[in-house]
Each structure stands twice: as structure tokens, then as C-alpha cells.
């Protein structure tokens, strides 16, 4: 799984309210498409018009804190975001992202080195992140096989449909 895209730079503690605010979400609750114009609206005006397919979000600590709303990662994926690299992630957001097949990668150097618009290259399987614009490379801990399998299927629902069960067996 190789990803190449432009970086959008965000700070620490970007919440699911920043990504899709409840006040918009509940106005469009039965149609996720109607939420699109409001994605990250109060952080980057007109984000949904500016974002391009393949773009990568690079953020600071605790990305996705707050609500369990899966609409947050799902809308980012719908808008073409191909991966999120952050100093750390809130746990529900992390899990939701994997579940829908959106790679979320915890890293140290890349979030610090990256500026908006930099070109990033991500080798998801090997855990290699490269900021091509800055010439910075970082090796992170690669995902376990089960998570790679989910991402390769495009999400855990697709995985369960293909293999008939969850990827984890009850083993230590």
C-alpha cells in the first residue's frame, strides 16, 4: 500500500467537532453527503473545495479527540484523504479509521518537519514515511498483519465479508 500526496498541516487536539461539528452533522444525519461542505470548515475554510484526492493530513498530538462519530474519518476519506499522520491519536478515532480502511499513522519526526503543501510518500506496509519536499524520512513501527489485512480489504466490514469473521483470533 503506497501513498503519495500533498500535506495539510493541522495542530494538536483536533477534535471530531472540528472535523464535523455536531451542529452540522445533526442537520444532515440521514445523508452523509450533505455533511461534506462542513468538513473542517471552522479550521480551514472551504476545505472540501481545496482538498484533492490522495492528500495527507499531518497533525500534532491527540488527533480526533472527542466524539465516537465515525462520520469524522469517513468524511475525510470521502473527500480523498489517503492517510493521516499525527503525533498521537484519540483511541476511538484511531479504531474507526482502521475500521473504514483509512491508514492512521503515529509518528514523531514527520509531524514536526512537515509544512503545508509538502509532498509525502507513505509505505504503509513497511512503516516508512518520507517528506519528499524536506528530504526527511522516518521509520515507524509497521502495523500488525491483521490491521494491514483490514486496510487492504478497504475496511473491517469488507474483511468480515471476505473471510467470514474478525481478523483476530483469541490468542495471546
Amino acid at each position: 500500500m503506497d501513498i503519495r500526496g500533498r500535506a495539510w498541516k493541522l495542530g494538536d487536539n483536533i477534535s471530531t467537532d472540528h472535523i464535523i461539528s455536531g451542529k452540522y452533522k445533526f442537520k444532515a444525519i440521514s445523508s452523509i453527503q450533505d455533511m461534506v461542505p462542513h468538513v473542517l470548515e471552522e479550521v480551514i475554510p472551504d476545505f472540501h473545495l481545496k482538498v484533492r484526492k490522495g492528500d495527507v493530513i499531518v497533525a500534532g498530538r491527540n488527533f480526533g479527540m472527542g466524539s465516537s462519530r465515525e462520520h469524522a474519518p469517513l468524511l475525510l476519506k470521502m473527500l480523498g484523504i489517503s492517510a493521516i499522520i499525527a503525533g498521537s491519536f484519540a483511541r476511538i478515532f484511531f479504531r474507526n479509521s482502521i475500521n473504514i480502511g483509512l491508514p492512521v499513522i503515529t509518528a514523531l519526526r514527520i509531524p514536526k518537519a512537515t509544512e503545508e503543501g509538502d509532498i509525502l510518500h507513505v509505505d504503509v506496509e513497511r512503516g516508512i514515511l518520507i517528506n519528499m519536499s524536506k528530504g526527511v524520512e522516518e521509520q515507524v513501527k509497521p502495523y500488525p498483519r491483521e490491521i494491514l489485512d483490514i486496510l487492504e480489504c478497504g475496511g473491517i466490514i469488507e474483511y468480515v465479508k471476505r473471510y467470514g469473521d474478525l481478523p483476530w483470533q483469541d490468542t495471546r
Partner: protein
Amino acid sequence: MGGMTITEKILSYKAGRRVYPGDLIVVGIDLAYAHDGTAPLAIQIMRENPELYRVFDPLKVLFVVDHASPAPHVEAAKAHKMMRDFARKFGIRFFDVGEGICHQIVAENGYARPFSLVLGADSHTTTLGALSSFATGVGSTDITLAISLGKSWLRVPEPVKVSLEGEVRPFISGKDIILRIIKEVGVDGLTYKAVEFHGDAIKYISMDSRMTICNMCVEAGAKTGIFPVDGILLRYLSQIGVEGIELEADPDAEYDEIFSFDLSSLEPQVAEPPNVDRVRAVEELEGTEVDQVFIGSCTNGRYEDFLAAAKILRGRKAKDGVRCIAIPASRSIYLKLLKDGVLNVLTEAGFFVAHSTCGPCIGAHLGLLGPNETVISTSNRNFPGRMGDKDSKIYLASPATAAASAVEGRIADPRKYLGD
């Protein structure tokens, strides 16, 4: 081998073997629930994937209409209709408009109890740790799989011990305690951890306050927050007709981290925007003018919360020009407040009292904020724009502090009104 934490005891019981932090386990679900913010997406996923369009056990699946309820617009009405149709088709437990906020419904009805494994499609599912269950929030996909397959995978979280010591003074509530804890650890300080509460002070902390404390463990990133079974919980369980069982950590259980708090000197706490860990003692923020006061939500919409507010508001009026909103977290709480005259006190003080809904906490309806307006709210998050305009400000506090602030029209110390 070492003793076991509460988390290890519950998850070992569920897995059928001794588990340790870091283990990946697949566990059966005792309860899977969702609300009108998360159920519609789950239903949509199921409809698009016919092999998952089923319910493993209708008695262990619950939907609650609570987030935008009753429907403030046609979009919400459509979402609610989807949930009603699903509930009818599969015969799951269903709580419609006005019954209550999902976590409160689950607690009151005994659907979560000691040793239960509970998944809720809402981050504040951690509330149910007050009942000694392992309860955590998930998204719509995880809840879909739980509803359909009756199981989920979990990584056994590392346990953190929070020791609460000292006598708790009467004007201090669960909200002050959890805000003090979050101030110490930060908004991501407990990410992924299972928080277990210990200490002598627990015996002073009511069930309502315990639910507030567990509810907001997620605001520090925790996967769950759990109180042990003790006399207070056993009494609560017996009142709702649930049999008690012992559950506490072994004395030699090992924790990754230990935090200790002396509550005897704790003052009322307030979190200022834009994050929940920006906590200060109330006196540092006294005088900050407010346009709105909100007492309610899954964090502080319980009986004790409104009683604390009424103690301050009895015979007093909210300051002119301040909009004051009170929303009990369930119909049964509403009814008890009504019978005991508490709603009279709030109404006479100038509060607008509404049926049960999450409403303003998530900016869905019933009192959004305009540009540069300020609210003091008993809810759980003060992120920019959560309750309205992006330039509005949210201060989080206890019901007592919110009530005192209603009287003065600015952030105020509740102790002034409680003879302390």
C-alpha cells in the same frame, strides 16, 4: 503471577482465561447500543451488507433517540424513523423521544452491571463504569459488528490507579473531582488506559457523581473508567432489582501509573475554553460574564445535580438577560424532580425546563450560542463551536457552580450560597 485489576478480572472472565494488558482478545458482548447520532450509519452499513443485516440477540441490543430529540428538523425525523423501523423489524430494545439519554437509560434499567462488557456507539459510554462494568465507546462500524456478530475484539488496556483520599466537602461534586483529575493528566494523558478508582474518599461519592466521573474519563482519552463494587453500588443495584456481586481489584494488583488526589482541600473547578484540561479553581474565573447557563447532559443531568442547583436557586432568580436551561437526563429523573418540587424551584428561578435530550451539549437544538456568546455548562466538552457559533465560549462546571453563575450572570462560587 500477581493480583488482578478490575479490568483484568472482567476481561479474563469474558475471555475465559487469565488476560494481561496488551493481549488482543475477542469477547462476547453483553450489551451493544447506539443513538440517533450513530445508529443511522450503522443501519446504513447493515443495509448495504446483507450478510450483516441481522441482530445476534435482540435483548442485548438497544437504540435510543436522544441526540436531536424530538426531531428538530426533517433530517432528524428521517433518522429516527430509520431507527424505529429497524427496532420493529428485529425486536430490539428501543427507547423513543423523551425517554432519556442512552447511558442513563442503560444504568437505570440494569442493562449494565458488574462484570458486563458493554459497547456503546457514543464516547461517553464510559459512564457505565460506575456500575463496575467494562464499558467503552466505539464507532458505527464496531457497533454494527457487535449487533450483528455479538462480539468484538479488544486490546486489554493498561490499568491506571486513581486514588481518591480525604473527606469530600458537601459543595464538591463528581464534576469537580473529574475536572481536577483531567487538569492533572491532560486531555490525552490517559489515552487507551483503563482507569480504576480507589481510596477512602470513594465512600463519600454517590452513584450520580460516580457516573459523572466515569463519563468524563474519556475526556482524558481513557478507554474506560471503573469503580469497584461497594455498599453504595450494591444499594443502587438492589433499588433497580439487579443482584449484586463482588468485584474489586486484588490488593497486589499492578498498575502502570498511580495518581493520588486529596479531595479534602478541593475547591469548585471550572474548565475554560478551548479544552477540557484548562481547569482552574472557580475563584480564578469568578466574574466572567455568561449569556447562558445549561444544567443537564449525560454528564450532569441526574437527580443529585438538579437538587444541588435547586439548593442555590430556591428563593432566588436567575440574573436578567441570562438564558437558563435545565434538561434532566431521563424521564424517570424528570418525574422524580417533578414530584419532589425541584422543577418548581428551577422554573420559579427562571429556568426553561425541557424533556430529556442531549440537545444543546452537541449543538443539535434547544439553545445554541451566537457569535462571542458565553455559556457555563455542566456538559463534558468545551471545544470551539461545539454548542453553537465558532466564536462562542464554553466553560464547564458542576451544577452548583452553574446555578450560582445563573444568579449572578457571571461565573460565581457556589460556596457563597451554601453557607460555607
